[in-house]
C-alpha cells in the first residue's frame, strides 16, 4: 500500500477542491430554489461567510464527550467517503486511498458518520434531535433498498465491485455509460439518491420549521461549522459516487464538477416540485416503484 506523503498531500488538495466546490454548489442550489419560489436568495459567497462566522464564534457549550465527538464522527464519515472514493479516473493523484476497499466499503462507510452524528445529537438530549434521527434511520432503511438492488445489478453487469473497474468499463463513448447499458439500475439508484440527498419530499430528517433542524439542533459554533464542512464534502462525494457508477466517471476536475452539479441538481429539481412526505409515506414509496425497478434491473441480468 502507498502511504507516501505525496499521496497524503494530493488527497488533501482534492479534499480542498471538493469542499469549496461543494459550498459553491450549495449556494447556487439555494439561489435556484429561491428563484423558483420568487425570492432573490443568498449571494454565492454566503456559505464561506457562514463558515467563518461559525468557526470564530466565541461562546461554545458541550453536553459531554459523545456530544463533542459527534461532529468528528460526522466529518470523518464525509472525509472517509472521499478518501476511499476514486475521484478522477486515470489520475494517479486523485484516486485517493480507494485501493483499500471497493464499492461495499463506500456503501457501509456512509453509516460511520450517520451513527456518530446520531450518538452525538443523542447526548445533547434535545428531543428534536432524537425525533430527527429516528425518522432518518427509518427512512434510510428503505432508501437503501433500491440502491442495494442497483449495486447488485451493476455487480452482475460488470462482474466487479471495484469502482475504478466500473468506471473503466464505461470509458470510450457515452453509449458505454451505465445510464444506457443498464437504465433500470440507474433509475432505481437515482430515485434512492433523492432520499439520500434529503431534499423535499424526503427532507424529514432536518424538516425545517417542523422539528427545527433535526439532529444538529443542539449544535452551534465550531461544531455546526464542522457539520457544514462535512455537508459540502459529502454532497460532492456522494454525487461523485453516482457519477462513477452510472455516468462514466470523470477524467478531469471539470468533468467532475459538471456531472456532480447535474446529479445534485436532479434532487433539487424534484425537491422544488414536490411537498414533504410523512415518514410512513416516504418509507412505503421507496418500497414501491424504486424497489420494483431495482428488482427488474436484476432480473434482466439473470
Amino acid at each position, binding site marked *: 500500500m502507498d502511504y507516501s506523503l505525496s499521496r497524503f498531500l494530493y488527497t488533501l488538495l482534492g479534499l480542498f477542491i471538493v469542499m469549496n466546490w461543494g459550498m459553491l454548489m450549495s449556494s447556487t442550489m439555494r439561489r435556484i430554489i429561491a428563484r423558483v419560489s420568487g425570492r432573490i436568495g443568498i449571494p454565492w459567497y454566503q456559505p464561506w461567510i457562514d463558515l467563518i462566522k461559525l468557526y470564530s464564534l*466565541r461562546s461554545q457549550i458541550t453536553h459531554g464527550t459523545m456530544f463533542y465527538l459527534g461532529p468528528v464522527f460526522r466529518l*470523518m464519515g464525509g472525509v472517509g467517503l472521499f478518501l476511499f472514493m476514486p475521484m478522477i479516473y486515470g489520475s494517479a493523484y486523485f484516486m485517493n486511498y480507494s485501493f483499500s476497499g471497493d464499492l461495499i466499503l463506500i456503501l457501509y462507510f456512509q453509516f460511520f458518520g450517520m451513527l456518530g452524528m446520531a450518538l452525538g445529537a443523542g447526548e445533547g438530549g434535545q428531543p428534536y434531535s432524537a425525533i430527527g434521527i429516528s425518522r432518518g434511520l427509518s427512512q434510510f432503511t*428503505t432508501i437503501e433498498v433500491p440502491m442495494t438492488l442497483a449495486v447488485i445489478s451493476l455487480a452482475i453487469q460488470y462482474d466487479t465491485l471495484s469502482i475504478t473497474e466500473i468506471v473503466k468499463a464505461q470509458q470510450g463513448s457515452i453509449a458505454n455509460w451505465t445510464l444506457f447499458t443498464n437504465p433500470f439500475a440507474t433509475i432505481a439508484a437515482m430515485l434512492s439518491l433523492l432520499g439520500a440527498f434529503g431534499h423535499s419530499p424526503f427532507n424529514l430528517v432536518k424538516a425545517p420549521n417542523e422539528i427545527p433542524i433535526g439532529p444538529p439542533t443542539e449544535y452551534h459554533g465550531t461544531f455546526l461549522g464542522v457539520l457544514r464542512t462535512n455537508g459540502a464534502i459529502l454532497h460532492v462525494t456522494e454525487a461523485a459516487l453516482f457519477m462513477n457508477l452510472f455516468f462514466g466517471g470523470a477524467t478531469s476536475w471539470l468533468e467532475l464538477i459538471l456531472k456532480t452539479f447535474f446529479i445534485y441538481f436532479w434532487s433539487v429539481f424534484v425537491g422544488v416540485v414536490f411537498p414533504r412526505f410523512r415518514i410512513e409515506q416516504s418509507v412505503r414509496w421507496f418500497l414501491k416503484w424504486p424497489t420494483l425497478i431495482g428488482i427488474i434491473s436484476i432480473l434482466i441480468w439473470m
Partner: protein
Amino acid sequence: MVSPIYIIVIALGIAFSLGFFGKSKLNFAGILVLLGLLGMSFISGQWLFAFLNDTAVNTLIFTAGFQPPYSISLQMGLNEAVLTSMVNIAGLLGFVYLFRELSEKGIHLLMVYLVFVMSMNVSLMTRDLFNLFVFLEIETIALAGLILLINRKEAFQAGMKYLIASGIISGFLLIGIIMAYQSGGSLNIDDLIRANSSIGKISSIAGFLILVAFILELKPFPANGWGIDVYTAAHPGIGSLVSAAVATTGLYLLYKVLPIVGPQFNDYLVAIGAISFIGSNLMGTRQDNPNRLLGYSSVGQVGLLTLILGLAPSLGNQTLPIVFSILVSHFAAKAGLFWISGIIQSNHIKDWSGLRSSPTLMLLFGAFLLALLGFPPFPSFYGKWELLLTMGGNQQYTIVLIVLLGSFIEAIYLMKWLGYVIKLERVEIPRENLTLHKQMPIWIMGIVLFVMGFLMNRLNNYGASIDYLPLVFIFLLFVLDFLPVAFKNTLSIGGLLFYFIHLWDMVTDDLIRQIFLVIFLIGGILTFLAGYAQKGKRPGFYPTALLMYFGLAGIITAQGMFDFFYNWELMTVGSYFLIIRGKRSMPHAYSYMLFSIGGAYLLLAGFALAAASGAGEGLDALQAISILPEWVYGLLAVGFMSKTASLGLHIWLPGAHGEAESDVSPMVSAILLKAGVFGLVVLFLSIGMYNPSAERLLYVLGWVGALTTLMGNMSAAFQEDAKRLLAYSSVAQLGYILFAFTMMTQMAWLAGFTYTLNHFLFKAILFLIIGAIVVKLGTHNMYQMGGMIKKMPFSFIAVLVSIIVIGGIPPLSGFAGKWLFYNAILEKGWYFQGALIFFSGIVAFLYLFKLIYSVFLGQLKDNHRHIKEISAWVLIPSYLLIIGIMIFSAFPKEVLLPISEAIAPYFGNDALVWEGTKAISHLGYWDGTTIAIVVGTAFMLILAWLIALSAKAQKVEQFNIVFAAERPFRPETTHVSYNIYAGFHKAVGFLVTPVVTSFWNRMAEWTLDLAGWGRRIYSGSIQNYTIHVFFYIVVFYLLSMGGY
C-alpha cells in the same frame, strides 16, 4: 442357593403366624414382616447375583416332586431373577415407607401386604398357566385390600371398580385357560407353547382370551378408568407399588404368555401399545392431581413397553435389553415420584413447589422426571436410542413417529410440572412427613436410577465414548452447593479450564472444532468471571451451568451420532435449568424446553432415518445417506434450527433470553445458540458442496435464514425491553449465519464463520453489560433509563464498539462479514435473498440506535442520579472480548486465512487471494488493516482540528437545551424513546405480526382440547368402566378374530 420356593414359605409362614399378635405387639409384627420381605429380597437378589456372575443356570423347581406338566413348576432364570428382585426391592422399600401407616392399622394389612408381594413373585416364576391365574387373583384381592389403607370414600369406590373390572378380566382369562387346556391338553406353559396354538380355532380363541386378559391387566387406554382411579384414590405408597411392581409383573406375564398366543398378534400389540402410549399421555396433559397424572404416565410407559414387546420380531435379541432399560427407569422413577407424592400429600401438582425446601428430594424429583422422558444419563435414554435406531434401520418409520410423538406429549406435562416445582411460590410440605423412613426409599430409588444408567452405559456398545468425568465434577459441585459463590465460581472456572486443556489435543487437527471449543469453553470461563459480581449462594446455579458447558464440549468431541446426541441432551437439560432461574422465566423456560425436546426428537428421527442407509452410527455416516437423504438432512437441519431459533421455531427465544438472569443471558445467547450452529456446520459439511439431494433443502433454508434475519431485526426495533431487543437481535444474527452456511461456498462459509465469531464476541458483551444495567436500574424498559453515559462511561464504550460491529461499519470486524457476504451472494447468485439480507442489515441500525441512545444518551432520570458504574467483574470479561474484536478487526487475515484453508477441502480454495493484508475476491478487494490505519489517522487529525478550534467549549447542565421556546421540566417528558419508530411501524409493521406465535398457541389449544375430550371417558361410573372393558375386548376380538 436358597430355593425360590422359600419365598412362598417365608411369606405365608409369617402371614399366617401374624394371627398370634394382638394389638399390643403390632410393631413386633411389623418387624417380622420387614424381616420376611428382607428374606424374600435376599433370595431373589442372591439368584440375580449368581446369574450376573454366570454361576447360576436357568433352573426349574418342581413342586410335589413330580415332573411338569403333571405338577406345578417354578422357573428361576435371569429374567425371573431380575424381575423378582425388582418386585421385592419395591416391596421392601415400599414397606419401609408405609411402615407406620400399615402397622398402626393392625395385623391384617401387614398380612395382606406380605402375601401381595409374594403373589407377584410366584406369578413371575410359575410355569403353570392356572397357577399363574391363581396368584394373579391373590394379587388382585390383596391390592383390593391395600387400597383400604386410607379410609376415604374415593378409596372404597376405586377398590370396588378395581374388583369388578379385574373380576371380569380374570373370568375371560379363566375361559381362555380352560380352552387352552382343551386344545393343548396341558396347563404347562411350555407345553402349550409347543402345542403351537396358532392352528385350530379353539386354540386361537383361547389364545385371544388369554392375551386380551393380560393386556387388560395392564390397564390399557382407554379401558382403564378403574385402574386410573386406583392410582388416584389409593395411598401413594400403594400407588407406587401398583405402578412399579404390579406393572412390571403384568408386563412380564404378557411376555410370558405371548408365545402361547403365537406371533399373529404382534401387530395388534404394537397398535394397542401405541394407542395407550399416545392416548394416555394426552390425558396426562390435562391432569393437575399428581397421583392421577402419574397414573396416566404409568399407563403411557407401559403402553410404550407393550409396543416394544410387539416389535420383538424386528428387534430380535435387542428386545429385552431395550424393554429393561425403559422398564427400570419407569420402575424407579414412578416409585420415587409416588413416594414423594405421599410426603407432599396434596391434590394439586402446584403444591409440589414445597420440594424446594429439600434439595435432595428436589434433585431426585428432577432426575425422576428426566428419566421418564429418556434423558441421559438415565437407562431409558439408551433404550429409546436403540429402539429408534433399530426401527429406523428397518425403515419402520411410523414406529419412530409414534414413539417420538408420545414421548413429546409426555414431555408437555412433565416439563410443565417441573417448571411449577422450580418456580411457583413455595407451599410448605408437612414437616412430619420428612422422616428418614419416608425419604430413604426415595433416595435408594434415585441411586438405583443413576447406577442403572451407568451400567447401561457400560454395557451398551457406545459406553466407551461417554466421559463420566464431567458428571462426577458436577455432582461434586452439587455437594459443595452450600459454599459461597466466589469459591464455587473459581472451582467452576478451574474445571472448565482444565477440561478445555484436556480436550484441546483431541481437536488439534480440526480448526472448526477448535473454534467452537474456544467459543464454548473460553466463552464459558469469561461468562463465569461475571459471576463474581453475584451475591449469595446461587443454589443450583453452578451444577446446571457446568452441565450445559460440558454438554457443549461433548458435542464437539463427539465422534458418533450417539455421543453427539447424548451430550446434546445433557446440554439441553443444563440450559433449561439455567434459563428457568430468571424471575419471570417459568413459561419461557417451558417453551424453550418444549422446542428443544421437539428439536432433539427431530434429530433422533433424523439419525434413525440415517441408520436406514446402514452406513454405521458415526457422524461421518451422514455423508453416505442413500435412503431418503432429503428427509434425513431436513429433519436434522430443522432439529438444529430449533436451537438456533430460526423463523417459525424462534418464539421461545425472546422470553428465554430476555427473562434469564443477567449473566445467564450471555451464556445462553452468545454461547448456547452456537451449539445449533455447530450442528448445522457438521451437517452441511457432511452434506457436501455438490449434493443434488440437498439442493432444494438448502435453497429453502437459505430463504428461511434471510426471512429470520428480517423478522428478527424488525421485531428488535419495536422492542421496549432492552434484553428482549438483544434477544431478537440474536434471532436475526443466527438467521445471517444460517443463510451464509446454506450457500455452501467457501466465501459464504467465511462470512458465516465471521458472523459466528462476531456474534459470540459482541452478544456476550451486550448481554453482560445490558444485563448488569437492567439489574442495577431495576427495569427492563429502555424508556425508563437514559443518560447512563454520564454514570457508566466504560459500559458505554463497550456497547458502542459492539454496535459498530453489529452494524458492519468499517473499520471494525463487522464490516468483514458484510463484505464477504456481498461477494458470496454475488458469486452464488442468490440476489434477492441477498437484497433482503442487506435490507435487514440496515433495519438493524434502528434497534442499535434505540439501544444505545435510550440507555446511555438522552435524559438522565432523577431516580438514577445516584447510580454508579456496573461491577468491574462484568466489565473485565467485556473488555477482554473487546480486545478480541479489535484484533479481529485490525488483522482479519490472521483469522480468515486459516479458516479458509480449513474449509478448503470441502469447498475448494478460490474464494480469497491475499496480497499482504489485502483480501482480493474475484469481484472486489478489501484491506482491513489499511482501512483501520487510514480511518484512525484521519479521525485523529479531525479530532485534533476540532479541539484546536473549540478548546474553550464549556460543559453545561442536563437541561441546558432549548426547543421550540419551551424549557423541559422533567427528564421523562424530554427523553424521546418510547415507540420512537411509530412511523416505521405504521409503514411496514405488518411484516412482524406474530403469526408464528399464534400458530403455536393454537396448536397447544388443540392438543389440550383433544385431551379434554378424554373427560367423557372417565365418567367415574363403575358401570361405564365395565362397559369399556367389554367394549375393548369385543373390538379387539372383532378386529383380530373377525376373520373367522
